[in-house]
């Protein structure tokens, strides 16, 4: 594809986005506005993530794209093909081999390494949005660190359900300063945000915001002293690979109420099945 610039975006746009990323890295958790471009995919499909990836990827990078943990769903396949065609980069499904990983809704189970970049697609970047509809007001609340209202929401959850019922987009505080919405990852993945050796970049295309968690930054999930933060647990292991420490998807297998629980991270699951087979 000689008609497109490398990785689709023109160099001036990439420069602008890189400046936003630098600012985001300098102020962990702070939402930096940027001039989001029209992309050849619709809003809600990862336009923010694609623009961030296009701005940080180089010809020597190896790209992995995840959608809900899987490498083989529509969103993942399309975005991977997009970069194969417009940037000519190598792609992989192995977390360990990738240098840039774009993801929707999951952080890989395989621990990330220093030097890797994880790009998360974000629908709504503002953690206070459903509590305070005015953008001018939420910015002021961030500036003044007025985050009490987020605890009002957690209080209400405990009152109604006996525990914090929020299972995804669970609010975190980055570097003990900015309240951040960690994109719609399950709260199971929240502990992976904390002091992660990889660079975590968040791109919201429709809302035109970029934010970041630099490597080894403290990320704390909000909670109460007497109701500490907890992640989901499952009663059975993965039906395919036997893993007990991963995030499991429930899959309906027939119309008689049959269901199975399997790893949502397909790469991790396959790798583990392969090792199980080799051991036998």
């Amino acid at each position, binding site marked *: 594809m000689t008609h497109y610039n490398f990785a689709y975006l023109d160099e001036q746009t990439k420069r602008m986005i890189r400046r936003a990323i630098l600012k985001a890295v300098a102020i962990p958790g702070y939402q930096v506005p940027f001039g989001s471009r029209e992309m050849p995919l619709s809003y809600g499909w990862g336009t923010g993530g694609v623009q961030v990836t296009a701005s940080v990827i180089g010809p020597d990078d190896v790209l992995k794209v995840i959608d809900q943990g899987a490498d083989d769903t529509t969103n993942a396949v399309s975005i991977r093909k997009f970069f194969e065609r417009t940037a000519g980069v190598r792609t992989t499904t192995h977390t360990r081999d990738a240098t840039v990983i774009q993801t929707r809704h999951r952080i890989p189970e395989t621990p990330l390494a220093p030097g890797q970049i994880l790009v998360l697609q974000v629908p709504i970047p503002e953690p206070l949005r459903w509590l305070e509809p005015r953008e001018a007001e939420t910015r*002021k609340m961030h500036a*003044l660190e*007025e985050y*009490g*209202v987020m*605890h*009002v*929401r957690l*209080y*209400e959850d*405990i*009152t*109604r359900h006996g525990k914090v019922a929020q299972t995804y987009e669970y609010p975190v505080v980055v570097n003990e300063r900015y309240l951040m919405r960690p994109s719609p990852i399950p709260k199971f993945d929240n502990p992976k945000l904390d002091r992660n050796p990889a660079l975590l970049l968040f791109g919201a295309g429709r809302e035109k915001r970029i934010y970041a968690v630099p490597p080894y930054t403290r990320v704390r999930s909000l*909670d*109460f*002293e*007497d*109701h500490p933060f907890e992640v989901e647990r499952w009663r059975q292991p993965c039906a395919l690979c036997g893993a007990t420490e991963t995030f499991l998807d429930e899959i309906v297998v027939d119309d008689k109420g049959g269901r199975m629980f399997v790893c949502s991270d397909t790469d991790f699951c396959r790798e583990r099945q392969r090792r199980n087979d080799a051991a036998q």
Partner: protein
Amino acid sequence: MTESPLLGVRGLTKFYGARVGCLDVGFNVWPGEVLGLVGESGSGKTTILNCLSGRIAAGAGNAEYRARDGAVADVLRLAEPVRRRLLRTEWGVVHQNPRDGLRMGVSAGANVGERLMDLGARNYAMIRGRALQWLDHVEMARDRIDDLPETFSGGMLQRLQIARNLVTRPRLVLMDEPTGSLDVSVQARLLDLLRSLVAELDLSVIIVTHDLAVARLLAHRLVVMKGGEAVETGLTDQVLDDPQHPYTQLLVSSVLRS
């Protein structure tokens, strides 16, 4: 009473374009005192309250507030972070329409607990305990703590709003027609409650009302407003029983005698 006022307002002026909101208004509020601002609609009562709480910017004048730590500052010129902090610690604002002052989507307990959480309380059981205490204080049933404000009557909403404000033990509470939208019997009980809370907590209150009966019951002193100006100031009984200014005389004589 101590020798210096809690709040000293001087020359407070606000224009809406060419029209007068309030003009050169001055008064003191002493610790433990309830000051009533009375007058007809459009006389500038609410303008004064809004200037003090920072909802609108005052045109001229100053309002010196003596904080708990003894520092004196002009609240009309406070930096925004300081003003917002003041409003949720040492001050309280009770709106005429409780829906403006409450979070209607969360339970009564969360409404009362919000200010505590704003100030860093992070223990669920403690916050809930304090909320229960305050429901007692404002004479609401304890078992309504988990109910949404949507399910409350007007009088209960107003009680909840008062509890929500008082939970951080403010020193000065601004009230805008707190009983304005209630029927007479509910109004009477709420006034009773306010009177006892003011005495018990040693609160200072600025209460805006057009209802002279409310003013007589609650306020120690009155400022009578007309056309944005304070036309008469004095002890409540004195102003209501022996009005000097023609407008005050008109106001007092226009109250229906039963």
